[in-house]
C-alpha cells in the first residue's frame, strides 16, 4: 500500500476536511421497488472507496443518481460540502464526476485521441479540432500516471487492459476529481489488474477520489481505503480492509453465510467421455483460431480451460457442441466420432451447453420463460404432439422447474428478457442441467452474476460432476477456473499450452501462461507474430 488504509488518519488530510463527495439519504423508488433506501456515502479526497453489493443491490442506481442518469426521490448530493443538483451526464462531467462503465464506452474505429476528445473537444477555432494540442495533453497525462500511449492508434486494436487506460485518460482529460469505476477488472488478467491498480493508486495520491465497484472481494480488500457494503438498497455496513476479511464481507453483502469457494471435494474420474483430437477451427473471418487442440474430459471430472478472452475458446466450444464446423481434427463422444454433427444431434447425444452470451445464444429474450425452458426439447413428447405444442404440459413443467431451481420470476409466462441476469442464467442452467447428460459444456457460466447466483451455479456444477457427468468449463475469470477445475488447460493462441492439476496449480503461473503462452511461446508474443 502506498498510502494509509484509513485516510482520515493521514497527516496530510485533516479529518474535518469536507468529503469530496457526500451522498446523503439518497432514496430512489421505481414502481414496486425501492432501489435505494436512504443510502449515504462519503468519499474523501484522495480516497479509494469500494462499493460492494450484489447485482440488484442498488449500486448501479446509486451511481446513476450521481451521474445524472436518474433523479433521486429524496436525499442530497454534496460536492466539497456544497449541495448540488446533477441534471445529466454532461452536468456531472462539468462538476468533475466521471464514470468508467463496465462495458467500455469507447468507439473502436476512432483513435485514442478522438475517443478522449469526444464531447470535450480541444478546439483550434470554433469549428476545427486542435489535434496537436490534444495529442500533447494526452501523452503528458499518460506519462504522469505511468504509461506511454500513442494517441493515433485505433482503440479497437488495443487490448482490454489498454482500453481501460484510455477510459481512465478520458476521465482525466475532463479534469475528473471523482472517478467511478464499475467492475473495472472483470475482463483483465491478474497482471493487467495489478497494472490498473498501480494507476489507480497514483490517481489517489494525486488527490483524486475513486469509487471502485466490484464483486471480487480480495480485490476490494487490496485496493480500497474504505468499503461500503449495500444490500437490497440499503447500506448494511462500512469496513476498513485491515479490520475485515472476505468471509465477513460476503456475509454482509449476501445477508447470510456464503460459501465463497464451493468445496469441490474429490473427483472420481471414470472413462473418457469427450475426446478432442487435433481440432482446428476457423472464426467468422476465416482465420484459424483453434490450431490443433487435443484434450480429454473424463466422466466425473471438471476440465477447466483458462485463457484471455479471444484465444480461440469460443470457437473451440462452438465446434464441440456442433455450432461451428471444424476445419480439421476429430471430436468423439463416448468413443463415437461426432465431428461436425448438428447442435440438435449433439444435444440428443447428451451434450448440454451453457453459452457465454446468454442474451444472444442462451435465451430468446422476447419469448416467455416457459418457452425458453423447453428450447432443447419442445419438439418431443410431452411438449409436442404431432405438429402441435402442448402448452399445458410446457407450463406445468416450467412451474416445477422454476420451483426446483429457485428462479425468481412473477410467473412462467413473463418474457425471459425481463428477468435479472442471475435468474436468466438460472433458467439456462435449469434447462441444460435438468436432464440426463454425459457432457456439460459451460462457457463463462457466471459472467456478470452476483455472489449468490455464482454460488448456486457452482454448486449445481459440482453436483453434476459428482453424479458422473463430464464437465468442460471455459472462463476468463481465473479464480473460477482455479476453484472449480480438477484439471486445468491453459489456452493461448489456439492451442492448449499446458495442462495441470487443478488443486496444485499456482495462480500467478497460470496467469503468466495465459498472457504469454509460456517460455517457448514468449518470443512470439513480444514480436506480435502468431505461432
Amino acid at each position, binding site marked *: 500500500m502506498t498510502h494509509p488504509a484509513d485516510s482520515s488518519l493521514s497527516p496530510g488530510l485533516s479529518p474535518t476536511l469536507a468529503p469530496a463527495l457526500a451522498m446523503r439519504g439518497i432514496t430512489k423508488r421505481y414502481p414496486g421497488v425501492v432501489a435505494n433506501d436512504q443510502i449515504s456515502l462519503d468519499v474523501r479526497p484522495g480516497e479509494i472507496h469500494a462499493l460492494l453489493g450484489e447485482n440488484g443491490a442498488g449500486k448501479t442506481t446509486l451511481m*446513476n443518481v450521481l451521474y*445524472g*442518469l*436518474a*433523479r433521486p426521490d429524496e436525499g442530497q448530493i454534496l460536492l466539497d460540502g456544497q449541495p448540488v443538483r446533477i441534471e*445529466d*451526464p*454532461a452536468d456531472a*462531467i462539468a462538476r468533475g464526476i466521471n*464514470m468508467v*462503465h463496465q462495458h*467500455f*464506452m*469507447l*468507439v*473502436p*474505429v*476512432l483513435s485514442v485521441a*478522438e475517443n478522449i*476528445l*469526444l*464531447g*470535450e*473537444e480541444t*478546439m483550434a477555432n470554433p*469549428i*476545427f*479540432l486542435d489535434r496537436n494540442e490534444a495529442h500533447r495533453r494526452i501523452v503528458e497525462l499518460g506519462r504522469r500516471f505511468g504509461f506511454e500511449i500513442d494517441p493515433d492508434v485505433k482503440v479497437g486494436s488495443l487490448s482490454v487492459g489498454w482500453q481501460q487506460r484510455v477510459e481512465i485518460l*478520458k476521465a482525466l482529460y475532463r479534469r475528473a476529481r471523482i472517478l467511478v469505476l464499475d467492475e473495472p477488472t472483470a475482463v483483465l488478467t491478474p497482471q493487467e489488474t495489478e497494472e490498473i491498480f498501480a494507476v489507480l493508486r497514483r490517481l489517489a495520491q494525486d488527490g483524486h477520489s475513486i469509487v471502485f465497484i466490484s464483486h471480487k472481494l480480495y480485490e476490494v480488500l487490496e485496493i480500497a481505503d474504505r468499503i461500503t457494503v449495500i444490500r437490497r438498497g440499503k447500506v448494511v455496513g462500512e469496513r476498513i480492509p485491515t479490520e475485515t476479511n472476505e468471509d465477513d464481507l460476503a456475509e454482509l453483502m449476501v445477508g447470510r453465510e456464503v460459501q465463497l469457494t464451493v468445496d469441490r471435494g474429490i473427483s472420481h474420474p471414470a472413462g473418457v467421455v469427450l475426446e478432442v483430437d487435433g481440432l482446428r477451427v476457423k472464426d467468422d473471418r476465416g482465420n484459424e483460431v483453434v490450431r490443433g487442440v487435443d484434450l480429454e474430459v473424463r466422466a466425473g471430472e471438471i476440465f477447466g480451460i483458462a485463457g484471455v478472452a479471444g484465444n480461440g475458446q469460443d470457437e473451440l466450444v462452438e465446434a464441440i457442441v456442433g455450432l461451428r464446423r471444424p476445419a480439421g481434427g476429430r471430436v468423439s463422444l463416448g468413443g463415437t466420432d461426432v465431428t461436425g454433427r448438428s447442435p440438435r444431434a449433439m444435444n440428443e447425444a447428451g451434450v448440454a451447453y451453457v453459452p457465454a452470451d446468454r442474451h444472444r445464444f442462451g435465451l430468446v429474450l422476447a419469448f416467455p420463460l416457459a418457452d425458453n425452458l423447453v428450447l432443447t426439447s419442445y419438439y418431443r413428447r410431452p411438449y409436442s404432439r404431432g405438429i402441435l405444442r402442448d402448452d399445458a404440459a410446457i407450463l406445468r413443467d416450467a412451474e416445477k422447474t422454476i420451483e426446483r431451481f429457485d428462479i425468481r420470476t412473477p410467473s412462467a409466462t413473463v418474457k425471459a428478457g425481463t428477468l435479472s441476469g442471475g435468474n436468466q442464467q438460472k433458467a439456462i442452467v435449469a434447462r441444460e442441467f435438468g436432464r440426463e447428460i454425459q457432457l456439460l459444456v459451460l462457457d463463462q457460466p457466471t459472467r456478470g452474476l452476483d455472489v449468490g447466483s455464482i454460488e448456486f451455479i457452482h454448486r449445481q456444477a459440482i453436483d453434476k460432476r459428482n453424479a458422473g457427468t463430464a464437465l468442460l468449463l471455459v472462463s476468463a475469470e481465473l479464480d473460477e477456473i482455479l476453484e472449480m477445475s480438477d484439471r486445468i488447460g491453459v489456452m493461448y493462441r489456439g492451442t492448449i499450452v499446458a495442462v495441470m492439476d487443478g488443486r496444485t496449480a499456482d495462480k500467478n503461473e497460470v496467469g503468466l501462461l495465459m498472457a504469454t503462452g509460456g517460455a517457448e511461446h514468449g518470443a512470439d508474443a513480444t514480436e506480435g507474430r502468431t505461432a
Partner: protein
Amino acid sequence: MDALVNALYAIPIVGLVFQFAGYLVAIIPPISPIILRGATPLALGGMCGVVSERSGVVNIGIEGTMLASAFTGWVVGVALAPVLGSTPIALFGITLPLLLALVASLLVALAVSYLHAWLSITVRADQIISGTIINIAAAGVTGYLNTLISKNSPTSAGSFALFTPPTALTNLPIVGWLFNMVLNQGPITMSMLVLVVITQVMLFRSRWGLRTRAVGEHPRAAETVGIDVIRLRYRNVLIGGLFAGLAGAYLSMEATNSFQANMTAGRGFIALAAMIVGRWTPVGALGAALLFATFQSLGQAIAFAPPGGELGVLMTAMPSQIYDALPYLVTIIVLAGVVGRSIAPAADGQPYERESAT
C-alpha cells in the same frame, strides 16, 4: 517493341481492349463537363446519405426527397415567373423567381427529411420503411399534381445558365479540359464540388464531424460524454435533406427547365450505391458518382462520335438499350465487388433509446 504491340493487337480481344482504352482517353476530355453534370445529383444524393448514415440514420428516401424538391422548384418557378418577371439579376442567369423556387425546393426537402427524422429517430420506426414511404408518397403526389398542372402547359421560370470560362484557361495544354470540366457549369454543380470538399474536411477535422462519427458508431458512448444523440441525428438528417434538395433542384432547374413524372429515375438509389462504394465519405461518393456518370455519358458519346475501326463497328452495332443499361450494370458490378469490404457505421439504422432519466 512495335512488334510486341502489333502482336498484342493481333489477338482479337486484346486489340479491342486497347482500342477502347484509346477511345476513352480521346473522348473523356471533351465530354467531361457532361460527365460532371451527370455526377452532380448522384454526388449530392450520396452526401445526403453520408451525413445521415454517419450519424446512424439509414436514409433510402433520398430518391423521394429529390423528386419532391425537383417538383417544388419547378412549380414555384412556374407560379412566380409571370408575377416577378424574368430579368437576370446576377451571374448564371439567376432570376428572382428562380432564386425563390430554389429556396422553396430546399424547404420542401427539409420538410420531407424532417418527416424521415421524426419517424426514424423519435418514433423509432423501421428506417427502411420510413424511407420507402417517402419514395412512394413523393412519386405519387408529384406525379398527380404534375398531371393536373401540365394540362395548362404552363411556362417555366427557365433554368440556371452555364458559366462560360475564358478560352485562355480552357485552351491551356493538358489541363485546359479540366478547367472546362469544372467551370463550364451551372451554379449547383459548382456548389456541389465546393460542398464535397467542405463536408469531407468537416467530417474528419471538426467537432461536428467527430461527434457525428461517434454517434453513428456507438451512440451510448457519445451520450455518456454528454452528447445529445437525438439532436445530432436530427441535425444531420436535415443537413442531408438540404443536399438531396439541391440534387432535386439541379434536375428541374439546372439540367432542364421542366419537371417530368419520376424524373429522378433511380438516381437517389444510385446515390446510395455511390455512398457505399465511396465508403461513406463525401470525396469517395463523388468519385463513385463520376464513375457511374462516365458510363452514363458513354452511350451518348458513342452515338455522336463513335470510335473508328472494328471497335466502332462493334459498338454502333450494339442496341442503344445496352448503353442505357450500362450505368446500372456498372452499379451492380461495382457494388458486388465492394460490398462486404466497405463497412457501414456500426449503429447505422439502429434507433437510439436514451437511458431513462427519471
